[in-house]
């Protein structure tokens, strides 16, 4: 392995670093969609997210005026006291946004800005000015569904925007960008297209100076198909993003949402289980209010905790153990051991020998009963360790399998 191909260790205190650490501890990171135009409310929301009984990162979701660059209208709404559907980060001064996140955002609670803009340069300037370093989107996924901007212009905009964030790298921070490509139109896109877009946008981010990225996939209507899609996404990322810090983020269902509280909760729990089953590191939740309105802070906290409990019950966030001594290559569908087996410390009955977790070309065996992210080398394994084998990040397994 050349020095250039060595994986970048996520910086402690960075968005990617926080997620990697949670992953090593076997905890799924959960995150709300949350944005209020009132700075006091926004701060309250971040604080409540931080205090939720779950491993959380914070979100500042921007309003629709800011997303389309109409900062004048956003300022007018602020001046006249009209509530917006998000936090207008450009219309508010950097000082106000710094006050919103002061003593809340930091190494133990990274905050990501979510927007939806095909021209996010001024948004990213505001993000950086406020001392933040994580955002999301992409030149295609935030162009076609959300704006009238031609793709070529969106690409140029996103190049410039990436440069704004990447600049932080020279200042010692580790900026993070998440692809929105795994959602695209919310629904009605084949998973293969979502996977391809997510990978391409991650490659775009790398090309333009980002070293810490996440790849999204939005829960669709078929859990089996979703698991296959995320497996493919992870495998491609493992092959194509060598040298980057990266993880997978699942979006809870982005289509027409159940109207009943029970239905909404079930769908969210299903998304949490998908994330655990597929080795995703982070989940963006939806609330019981989704079908009706923008959720309250309390509803968001409830959703975060519901998702965290569902993830815990589904087992460690890293995946199943493997039959001792099995040396067969692992198939994408090898997820047979039950949670009780995994936590008992006893050897798992494991998958059949037609599909195991490791291959001799890259040792990533997980020890039954061990903390989810700790792996040991399989007895007799002689293959080279994969780039990320040290902590058995699932990406390595996907790449190896």
């Amino acid at each position, binding site marked *: 392995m050349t020095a250039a191909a060595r994986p970048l260790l996520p910086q402690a205190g960075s968005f990617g670093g926080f997620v990697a650490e949670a992953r090593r501890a076997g905890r799924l990171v959960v995150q709300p969609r949350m944005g209020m135009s009132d700075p006091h409310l926004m701060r309250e929301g971040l604080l409540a997210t931080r205090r939720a009984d779950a491993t959380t990162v914070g979100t500042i979701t921007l309003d629709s005026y800011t997303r389309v660059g109409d900062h004048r209208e956003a300022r007018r709404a602020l001046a006249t006291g009209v509530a917006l559907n998000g936090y207008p980060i450009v219309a508010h001064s950097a000082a106000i946004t710094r006050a919103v996140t002061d003593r809340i955002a930091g190494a133990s609670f990274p905050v990501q800005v979510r927007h939806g803009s095909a021209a996010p340069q001024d948004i990213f300037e505001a993000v950086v000015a406020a001392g933040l370093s994580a955002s999301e989107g992409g030149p295609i996924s935030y162009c076609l569904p959300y704006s009238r901007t031609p793709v070529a212009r969106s690409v140029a905009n996103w190049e410039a925007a990436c440069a704004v964030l990447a600049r932080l790298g020279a200042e010692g921070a580790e900026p993070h960008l998440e692809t929105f490509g795994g959602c695209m139109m919310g629904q009605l896109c084949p998973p293969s297209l979502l996977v391809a877009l997510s990978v391409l946008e991650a490659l775009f981010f790398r090309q333009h100076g980002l070293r810490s990225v996440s790849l999204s996939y939005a829960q669709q209507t078929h859990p089996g198909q979703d698991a296959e899609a995320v497996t493919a996404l992870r495998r491609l990322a493992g092959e194509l993003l060598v040298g980057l810090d990266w993880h997978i983020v699942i979006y809870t269902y982005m289509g027409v949402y159940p109207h009943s509280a029970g239905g909404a909760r079930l769908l969210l729990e299903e998304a949490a289980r998908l994330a655990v089953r597929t080795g995703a590191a982070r989940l963006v939740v939806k609330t019981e209010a989704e079908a*009706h309105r923008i959720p309250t802070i309390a509803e968001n906290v409830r959703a975060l905790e519901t998702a965290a409990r569902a993830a815990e019950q589904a087992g460690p966030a890293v995946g199943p153990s493997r039959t001792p001594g099995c040396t067969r290559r692992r198939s994408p569908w090898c997820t047979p051991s039950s949670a009780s087996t995994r936590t008992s410390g006893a050897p798992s009955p494991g998958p059949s020998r037609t599909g195991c977790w490791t291959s001799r070309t890259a040792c990533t065996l997980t020890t039954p009963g061990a903390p989810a992210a700790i792996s040991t080398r399989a007895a007799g394994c002689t293959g080279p360790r994969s780039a990320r084998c040290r902590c058995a990040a699932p990406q390595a397994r996907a790449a190896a399998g």
Partner: protein
Amino acid sequence: MVRKLRACDELRATPIVIGGKLGIAGVEHGDRLGALVDAGFDAVFEDSAGIVGFHDFVRALPSGVGR
């Protein structure tokens, strides 16, 4: 927006409606919906009211143009 549309001569009599989730806090009531009609919409269809009212509105429209 609708005031700008109504300011165009050729759009003065065109049926224009608005609907869906119109606020950020759930179902909108009375005053806010009335303000939209006053601004120039022919009708307002809140998401929670269902689609029947909209169907009735469309059925009641005179067919063709030529007014």
